[in-house]
Structures are given as structure tokens and as C-alpha cells.
């Protein structure tokens, strides 16, 4: 009954890392500067927000759902929180008061984000409408609310608020530290808590999960609240990094990148299978393609074709792997 090291299983579970290493090797042979420390930092910085959203997205996908709202909810959270931290000497600021203390605003922003997700999560859980539809609707609503809140970008944000997205500790970007913390948090939730076990159970077989005493509805609300919380973290980073929040463009189509990363990372759309480490590899693969092909001066459209092929290919491989098991 002892757990033994299974080489085959290890390889099949981590084949995605081999793909990543292969890609890095290919790109760095063509362009040695790619592997420099500075470029690596740039690469991760560029993918951090999408990556954090993917850590949320994977929960939704693992429960046989999807969360198409994250880009738009990020925009809404970004403009609202940014409006609370505009510098006092800025003449065109949105609100007459402020800036409020950054830690307070950030906490409020995160809670606000989680509540948005809990709201459409409850819609999915209690009305049983398909998550694709519910989150598509919520996406339109969130984006519209952001535009109603302000019709122009919210800028001149306090340095304290920008610290997470823009700041550095000893020369090291804080955004990467936040990314690592979110990775750890996602991994902790998924493997070390009841909530995580429930996510797998609900995604694998929701009826059996209910019989086993799991509150399926609460679990779904939790999943979308977490996904939206991740979007809110992303929102603060985006606004901080850019120094402004744009209701029309902040987070635009980020949900699709998050879906792509989660999918490449082996999250099963038929539910019940996901690994945080796999999703991390998925993000990095997308990052290498984005960053590397730009360095190689590959045309934008070509880059997207490569990305498309990787997404489709990863799912084909995954399905074959799972089909063989059966």
C-alpha cells in the first residue's frame, strides 16, 4: 500500500514542463539574449496578471464551468478603486475626496471583486444556467458599469496604491512577488482545504458530491468568488503598473488568455482535473511565445497562429491521454 514513484505517471503529468523547456531552448538558440535575467523578469511581469486570472479560471473550468467575466470585472474594480486613490493635486479627479489610504482601498477592492463573483456564482448555482451564459452576461454588465462609472481613464494614482503593480523591493518587481503569492494561495486552496477537495468532487460528479454531503451550491459560489477575487488582484496590478485605469480597455480579452493558460496547463473542460503547477507552465508557455517571438521579430499574426496551435494541440494531447486511460 506504499506510494511508489511511478516514472511513467510522473512524465505524463509533467510533460508540459518538457514542452516549456523545449520551447525555451528553441527560442534561446535563435536569440541568446532571450535567456538573460532581465528578459526573464520582463516576461514574467508581462504574464503575471493573466497568470493570476488563470489561477482563478482553473477552478471554474475544473468544476465544468468557465468564467468569462474576469476581464470586465477587473476593469470595474480597477476604475472604482483607482478613483479612490487619485492624487489630491490632480484637477481632473473623479471624486472630490481622496486619496484614501492604499491598504484600505486595496482591501475594499478585493472584497468588491469577490462579491461580484459571488453574485454571478450564486446565479449559476441556484438557477443552474450554464456558466458560459451567466458569465458572458456578467461580462457585458461589468464592462458597461465601468463605463457608466467613468467615461475616461482614471489616472494620477497615489504611489502607495501603485506599489503592488509598479513597485520594486531591492530592484525586484513586487508584481512578481504577488504572482508567486497567488500561485501559493491557489495551490493551498486546491490541495490543502476542504474547498479544494469539493471543487474536484463537484467537477468530477456533482450528484455524487451532493450525496457525499458536499454543498454543491456553496462550492460553486466559492469558485466564482475566488475567480473574481483573482481578477480583482489583477485589476490592482494592472492599474498600478499603468498608473491609470481605463474603463474601455483595462483587462480587455484577458479572460480568453486566462482560459488559454488554464487549458494548456491541463485543466480539463470535462471537469475534475487540474493542477496549479500545470497552469503555471501553461502561463509560462504563453509568455515564452509572446515574448520570444517578439524578440525574434516574428509577425504578430504569426504569433497568434502559434498560440492557437499550442492551445488546440495541448487539448488534443490531453484528451488522447485520458482516452487511453479508459
Amino acid at each position, binding site marked *: *500500500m506504499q*506510494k511508489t514513484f511511478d516514472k511513467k505517471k510522473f512524465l505524463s503529468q509533467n510533460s508540459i514542463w518538457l514542452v516549456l523547456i523545449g520551447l525555451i531552448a528553441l527560442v534561446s538558440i535563435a536569440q541568446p539574449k532571450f535567456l538573460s535575467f532581465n528578459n526573464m523578469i520582463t516576461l514574467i511581469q508581462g504574464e503575471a496578471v493573466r497568470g493570476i486570472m488563470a489561477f482563478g479560471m482553473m477552478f471554474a473550468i475544473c468544476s465544468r464551468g468557465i468564467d468569462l467575466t474576469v476581464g470586465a470585472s477587473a476593469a470595474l474594480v480597477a476604475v472604482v478603486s483607482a478613483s479612490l486613490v487619485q492624487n489630491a493635486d490632480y484637477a481632473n479627479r473623479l471624486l472630490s475626496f481622496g486619496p484614501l489610504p492604499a491598504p484600505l482601498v486595496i482591501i475594499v477592492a478585493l472584497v468588491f471583486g469577490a462579491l461580484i463573483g459571488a453574485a454571478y456564482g450564486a446565479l449559476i448555482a441556484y438557477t443552474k444556467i450554464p456558466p458560459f451564459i451567466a458569465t458572458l452576461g456578467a461580462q457585458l454588465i461589468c464592462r458597461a458599469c465601468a463605463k457608466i462609472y467613468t467615461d475616461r481613464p482614471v489616472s494620477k494614482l497615489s504611489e502607495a496604491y501603485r506599489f503592488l503593480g509598479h513597485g520594486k523591493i531591492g530592484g525586484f518587481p513586487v508584481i512578481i512577488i504577488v504572482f508567486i503569492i497567488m500561485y501559493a494561495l491557489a495551490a493551498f486552496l486546491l490541495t490543502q*482545504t476542504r474547498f479544494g477537495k469539493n471543487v474536484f*468532487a463537484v467537477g*468530477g*460528479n456533482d450528484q*455524487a458530491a451532493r*450525496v*457525499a454531503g458536499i454543498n454543491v451550491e456553496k462550492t460553486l459560489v466559492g469558485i466564482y468568488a475566488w475567480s473574481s477575487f483573482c481578477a480583482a488582484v489583477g485589476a490592482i496590478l494592472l492599474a498600478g503598473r499603468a498608473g491609470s485605469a481605463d474603463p474601455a480597455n483595462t483587462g480587455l480579452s484577458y479572460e480568453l488568455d486566462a482560459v488559454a493558460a488554464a487549458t494548456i496547463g491541463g485543466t480539463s473542460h470535462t471537469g475534475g482535473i487540474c493542477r496549479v503547477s500545470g497552469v503555471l507552465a501553461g502561463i509560462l508557455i504563453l509568455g515564452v511565445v509572446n515574448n520570444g517571438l517578439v524578440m525574434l521579430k516574428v509577425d504578430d499574426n504569426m504569433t497568434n497562429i502559434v498560440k492557437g496551435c499550442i492551445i488546440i494541440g495541448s487539448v488534443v494531447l490531453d484528451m488522447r491521454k485520458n482516452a487511453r486511460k479508459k
Partner: protein
Amino acid sequence: MIDIVKEFPGVRALKGVQLKVRPGKVHTLMGENGAGKSTLMKCLIGIHPPTSGRIIFDGKEVNFKTTQEALNSGISMIHQELSPVPERSVAENLWLGRVPTKSFFRVDHKKMREDSYKLFEKLGLDVNPDEKMGNLTVAKMQMVEIAKAVSYDSKIIIMDEPTSSLTETEVEHLFKIIEDLKARNVAVIYISHKMDEIFRISDDITVFRDGEYVATDEAKNLTVDKLITLMVGREVTEMFPKIECPIGETVLKVENLSAGKAVKNVSFELHKGEILGMAGLVGAGRTETAEAIFGLRTRTGGKIYKDGKELNIKSPEDAIANGIALLTEDRRGQGILGLLSITDNTAIANMKEYGFPLNHGKMRTDTTDYVDKLNIKTPNIETPIQNLSGGNQQKVLVGRWLLTNPDILIVDEPTRGIDVGAKAEIHSLITRLAGEGKAIILISSEMPEVMGMSDRIIVMHEGIMTAIVDRKDFSSELILEYATSDTPYDPSKKEG
């Protein structure tokens, strides 16, 4: 003469198996789950072409690559789990994949309907071809599948546990159709675990064990005991090891329980150490009663008391917290979490006990504990549960519920689709649990099982409770009589 020989040297699933089927005869395949019966059939019909070996059909060597090839050559299979297109009509399901057409690729609906009528008439089936497939009972769907096989002019029809969800009358009808098929010189390969059925309809029986061929013989030369010995390779002494144990005070009291139209005014008491059987035909409302008690189905009336205290159970979560467990009838749909490990499957109903962050070490020791105690056969506790045989999956689920330490254990068809060896183990386990003072409700459609195990039997018919029978009065005639009776049970008349 139909003659099939197959060999698979070196392959784990089937180690050089042979099978010879005669036309116009019913040939039953027997063996514990995982013995290789289904795999062999999948080889035959082209789902998994054999790695080596030969299949000779009608004197010619064949090797089907797809089920369609097999179908067209005259071999069809009726799977244990039917896969109809529920939203379309019976006729469309029947002619699926070969819908008759007229000019301009238009579907010839008229011909389709007429052909269906003719076919059903020939087989004596009372099915309307225009009915939506999803509205049929499982039995009727199966009949349609058989009709489909006949329409392909099949010479061999394989039936994988066809009776597992049929009522007794439906089984009778099925057997009549099988007799009919025999008369048409069709060979039927029949897979089942039910001894009485097998001896009723089989001409030949072949036994497999662990992917190996054990023996073939004519049914008249075999007995139940001989067959079981062949199947398990050891003696299974007692099928229903009933041990009388002292029955204690009332644990559960159900008063006028109702749940919509499925359960109407059911009342009973359950005692410590008691096994309370629930008998009835399909649709009697037994599963629904269990679901209503367990909070899986909304109660529309009635009260539930445990240890004299009224419970307000709204969800399985509440039920588990109050020491009630339900082993569901539909193992795959409502039981196992297929992709997850044995450990997760065992611990899932008991997650509250593992704290925050989860204590994985304790989870593993608890699981190992039950794997040993319940004799679960698995390579290790991280194996996905879907890789285990049905019997072992069931044992894992029993372990899951025992881990929650329930006072009341409701088991719904606990041995359905399970091989003889595991069945006996589950029976003795249930008896042992009753001996330890747990109160057990046993829902079973197998008369010998429910009569062999229970202290009392509740009989239900279409949602009403028609009788509570004491062990001393058990007889299948009496229970069947109540199972078709419309008179609700009146306690004042009997227990005085």
C-alpha cells in the same frame, strides 16, 4: 454452425480465451467482475480488436475493426447501459445511422414508421414508434434495442446484464423474446450474475476467471454451487450469513413521510442492530423514501425522529451530521468520484474531520485502514477509483460511509452488478455492522437477498407502504402479494 475461438497470449486482459457459441442457443458467460467477459465481447464486436487469436464466424475467419462492421455481419450487442438519443422518437433511434431516404436526401419518415410497426408486431412489442425515446421505461428501451438487433438480421445478439434494472414481469417478457430469438436460430450470448435467471434460460455456460477461460458446459450438467466454485476458484460457503443479533431501542422513527407523488405517508420505526428490508417492484418508491430521509429529495410532509428528537434534514450534509448515511443505488452516477483517488473517495464525506489545512496523513491512514478492513483490492490508495472493479468500488463507498461513523446506514441495492465473491463480503459486512449496533435499511430487488438478510421487511407499492412483515412470516409469495397490493398498511390490524 457458428464457431468462435480467440487467443490472446501475453495480454493481461484476456489470456488465451476461447468461446464456442451454437446457433439457436443461449450461451451464458459467467465470472466475477474483471474476469474478462465484457472485454471478450468488445473484441468480438470490434470495439477492441483482439491483439491476436482468431474469430471464426459462420465458417469464415473475421476480424471486425468497428462495431458497424460487426453489426452488418450479424453480430450486435445490447450494452448494460443503454445509450439512446432521448429527445428523438423511437423510430429514429431504431434506424439511427441508416435512416431510409427518398429523392433529394429527404428522410422517408413514412417508411421508417411503417418498418418500425412491422418490426414491433413481429416481436410482439407494445411500443409506439412516435413516442419520444426518453419517455420509455428502461425495459421498453431495451426491447427497442433488441428490435434494432433483430432488424440488422443479427445471428448473434450479446446481452450484457439486461435484467439489472427490470422488474420481474419485464424480465418475463424479455425471456419470452429470447425464446423467440432462439426459435429463429439466433444465438444469444448472455452476461449475468443472477443465478436463477441463468439456469432458467441458458443452454450453455462458460466461466471465466481473471482473464482466463475456466470451463464450458451445458447448463443441465451444472449446479449453483458448482458454478460459484468455478467462478471464484474457492468455496463461497454462505450467501446470506444471517446472524441473529439483539435488537435494541428505536433509533429512527419516520412518521407519515411524503415526497411528492413518489412517497406517500410512509411510517416506520428502525431499531438499533436491526436490518430493515425494503422490498417492492421498480417504481415502488423505496429509493425515493431513502432519498427523502437523507435530504436528497424534498420532503413534502411527515416527520423524522432520531433518538426521540425531531430532525430537520434539508440536505445530505444535514443527514450526515445527524449520523445517517446512504449508499446509493446508482454507483456510477451518485456514488464514485471516478477521477479521484481511493483516498479522496473514502475521505470525501468526512472532510470536516481533517481540519485546516487538511491532514493528508490521517486521510491516508484512515483509507489504508478501510482498504485492509474491507479487503479492497487495489494497487495503491492513490489509484483513481474508476480503475477498480464494481465490487471494489462499492467497498470503497461503504468505507466512505463507515468513516463518518453513522448510526443509521441506508443501503440501496448494495450488490447490484457485483460479482459473487464481493457480494458475499458485502452481505457479511452488513450483518457485522448490525451486530455492532448500527441500524440498517436494506433496499433490494433481489428477493433472496432481502429475505435472507432482513429482520423485518417493509413492502411498498407505488409510493405507499403496504406491509411490514416479520422475519418469521417471510415468504416470497406474501411479499410479492403486498408488492402489488393497493391497500396501505394498517398497524392496528396486525401488530396488536
